[in-house]
């Protein structure tokens, strides 16, 4: 009985931390306690889909976009430097005439 009570007390404390699936006026809401996560775990062939979009692919595309942007930035910084050099050279040649 004492063990049962201890268990009950412990349960009581965790009650609000328990995850839940709730319906609110027809909306479906998945909830967790303040420090708890919602996790999606797929095997290599399983997918998580939100309205027909594969979330895994979406996250992959975000990373791909980020990498592309990094490359574009590098180019955008490298490019003017290179062109500026060429223009500078032309300018020098003109001055030397």
């Amino acid at each position, binding site marked *: 009985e004492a063990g049962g009570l201890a268990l*009950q007390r412990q*349960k*009581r*404390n965790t*009650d*609000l931390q*328990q*995850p*839940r*699936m*709730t*319906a*609110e*006026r*027809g909306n*479906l809401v998945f909830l967790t306690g303040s420090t708890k996560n919602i996790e999606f775990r797929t095997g290599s062939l399983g997918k998580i889909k939100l309205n027909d979009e594969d979330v895994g692919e979406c996250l992959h595309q975000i990373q791909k976009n980020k990498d592309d942007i990094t490359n574009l930035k590098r180019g955008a910084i490298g490019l003017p430097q290179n062109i500026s050099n060429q223009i500078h050279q032309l300018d020098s040649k003109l001055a030397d005439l």
Partner: protein
Amino acid sequence: AYKFWVPNTDFDAAANWSQNRTPCAGAAVEFPADKTVSVLVREGHSVSDMLLPLDGEFVLASGAGFSALDTGLHLDCSTAAPALFRDPDRFCWHDPRLWRSGDAAHGLFSVDAERVPCSHDDVVFPSDASFRVGLGPGAGTVRVRSVRALGQTFTRDEDLAAFLASRAGRLRFHGPGALSVGPEACADQSGCVCGHAEAQPWICAALLQPLGGRCPQAACRDPLRPEGQCCDLCGAIVSLTHGPAFDLQRYRARLLHAFLALPQYQGLQMAVSKVPRQPRLREASGAKADTEIQVVLVETGPETGGAGRLARALLADIAEHGEALGVLSATARESGAPVGGGS
């Protein structure tokens, strides 16, 4: 005293399902669309289809959850009919069958009205189960000393009102009735009246609802109707007028140990409480007090006259020790001989 709410709305409780069993693996499951409810899920369940309520919640205990199983894949779920979750609004606060007393003891029972929490009782809802309680209709405000729910104890009306208005509260309490708490511990050692005079019609209606609202025929001539009891019963009632020295707890313990424990009284059950004195009895006894101590004695088995014998033994006890016990006077009533059933 503590009163514990018994029924739950757990997913895993067989009684909550239309066919009195939890959905089998791969079952189609239906929750009523328009019933608000909180449902605790303790285990893992495979479902092929589950219609959720428009307003409700499924609380997942650790390890609990749902998985997909297409219907028809499992032999043990061949039934075509979906498993229906029973109406979660069917549990009424005033139903005596839905409460458990904290100080239950072997040989003790409570009259029907006192099985429902009295105004000085502390009410406890299960912390390890989901539940739903209907308040009302028509019985007015339910008053108790405190309410414990979801790990919180409410002793102030403002706090309780805030809880009841919250989503958590609305998922668990419904109906036109109001619930109120107040600092009314029973401070009188001679006991306190339960305070259900107004609510008793509702209590009895809830109790007798499965019987079509009518009491079963008592199995004796001249049956008795104790104060707070919904139907006539066979046995005996001892009514005590007490003085300032009377201690209800001590007297109840005395009856349990000095009488009910005796072999000749085995099978008898006893309810001891302070009740409003019935007006006709008040006039007859000439007593000024508007309350009395009611001792109800019933036999759980076939009628043997044991209740009557114990009633007379209690009168003799009071004649001998009344002054020490704080009892001023006592009367007893007995039901008549058994009827029917070819005894």
